[in-house]
């Protein structure tokens, strides 16, 4: 049987973008799952479980990332990662309305 595949697109919403701390949170959560996780910014595709590779994406506020998971717990992984990026936005500040929106 083929491995389940799950995919989603998320947008980086915190002001400072995917800098090292958020990237670490992402990798931390990704590593809780057994499935393979790849993240793409359209230009580069990297392993979602590697902090070095994730830091290479240099995703700023407003960047859209495609997350793809392959494996038995793919769905759970995608749900957790989407929650981190889009709902919790890494527990970081969002751009204030006064400043330019990204």
């Amino acid at each position, binding site marked *: 049987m083929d491995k389940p595949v799950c995919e989603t697109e998320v947008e980086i919403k915190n*002001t*400072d*973008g995917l800098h090292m*701390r958020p990237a670490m949170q992402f990798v931390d959560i990704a590593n809780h799952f057994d499935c393979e996780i790849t993240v793409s910014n359209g230009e580069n595709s990297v392993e979602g479980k590697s*902090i*070095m590779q994730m830091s290479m994406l240099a995703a*700023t506020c407003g960047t859209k990332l495609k997350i793809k998971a392959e494996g038995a717990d793919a769905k759970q992984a995608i749900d957790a990662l989407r929650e981190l990026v889009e709902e919790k936005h890494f527990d970081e500040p969002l751009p204030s309305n006064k400043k330019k929106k990204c």
Partner: protein
Amino acid sequence: MKFADFVCFDAVIPELKAKDRDGVIAELVSALDKAGKLGKANRQEIIKAVIKREKEASTGMGKGVAIPHVKHPAIKGVIATIGQSSTGIDFSALDKQPVYSVILLLSPADNPEKHLQAMENIFKHLQQEKFRKFLRQSQITEQIEDLLREADEDPSL
């Protein structure tokens, strides 16, 4: 963004004197200060800020490298320097291994994009085992400068 755009070669330290994390950070910030790259920023304040950031979460990414960094309002442009330790330094790295190459990055507070571009460049090369190995083997500033300039031209390095 290229290494040559933001690494200050005058502040590169091929063999760090300091043997611990905070000492290494102080040594590298001081080297940038000496090279005249801190501008109006206060050396002690920057050292404190980098150490504070490091305490929140280690920038020791594993594989013998650490990238201590901070965004600070007194810093006007993205600036970096490199220090090497042949004995290895405890940076509380992700893989718990000692760190041999330290890249210190200082960025302005109001330009997250530039900061991320510099990070992207640093990680792109640190990913490559060859690059990490060559960096660790470099014993003088000229070798480090040659390596970074070569890496700027050759994306596979």
